[in-house]
């Protein structure tokens, strides 16, 4: 399984919440971080998060066994490495 880590601060919470809408994704906690666990791919829609650009482009804290294949004004997409 692969994972995306997002620091739990108020601005970032919508990123984790929108990611968790995908039933194939599980949301856990590691200390002050959200751990967004996925199998093959996770796609997060920026507009659904409501994040302004500065928040959106700084919301990723870490990636485990995954690579970012899209991170633009539309979506953040990670695929298993």
């Amino acid at each position, binding site marked *: 399984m692969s994972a995306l*880590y997002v620091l739990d601060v108020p601005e970032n919470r919508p990123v984790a919440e929108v990611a968790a809408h995908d039933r194939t994704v599980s949301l856990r906690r*590691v200390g002050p971080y959200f751990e967004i666990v996925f199998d093959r791919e996770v796609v997060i829609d920026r507009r659904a998060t409501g994040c302004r650009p*500065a928040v959106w482009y700084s919301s990723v804290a*870490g990636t485990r066994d995954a690579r970012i294949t899209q991170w633009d004004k539309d979506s953040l997409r990670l695929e298993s490495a």
Partner: protein
Amino acid sequence: MAGTPHLVRGVDHVAYPTLDPAATVAFYRDALGFPVVHSICAAGWGPADHPDFIHFFFDIGNGDRLAFFYYFGYEPPRRGVKGDVYARFEDDVPDFFVSSRHLAIHVDGEADLMEYRRRLDSSRWPVELQVQHETIESIYTHDPNGYMVEITRALRPVTPQEDLDANLTIDALLDVLRADRPTMDALLARKAELILERAAGWAVPAPKLATGAPTR
């Protein structure tokens, strides 16, 4: 490092050269309202070829100061097509690099930020950009010397977990810099390892209680 006392108390002064002290005073003192609080008239300073100069200081709040040097009769050779009076660059240097160095001065809140926006917008140096970053909101302009000046307010206090995250970022960066070609992908992968190593047992400190009682 842990156990090493952190003794410093902020900025005493930061100093830049200016070729146009009249415009510099017009910008900082007259437009922004920063008081002149100190100046040095230095004649016969240093070796024989050192020009006489004025070193003058503006109060930027909190006892901190922004200072300038004006050297009588000296103009540096004109090189480059962009940058400020101190650092000039040719066209092949991208703007993100040229405009990366700046001074940010903070204010207490939105009303104060908007007051400085009003002062700048009614001057020869109007605000060029206003933007909400992650946890701060800022206005930007360039002073008469070409130095970028930011005035900023916090949108909320920085939390302890953000300090933890910053330290994990820097440790991950130092690790990936040892590779031939450090990349963001490598940093985020290394940082995930550090999160699992160090953050799992990390508990968010209890918020300080606002009891009104004095603390010592």
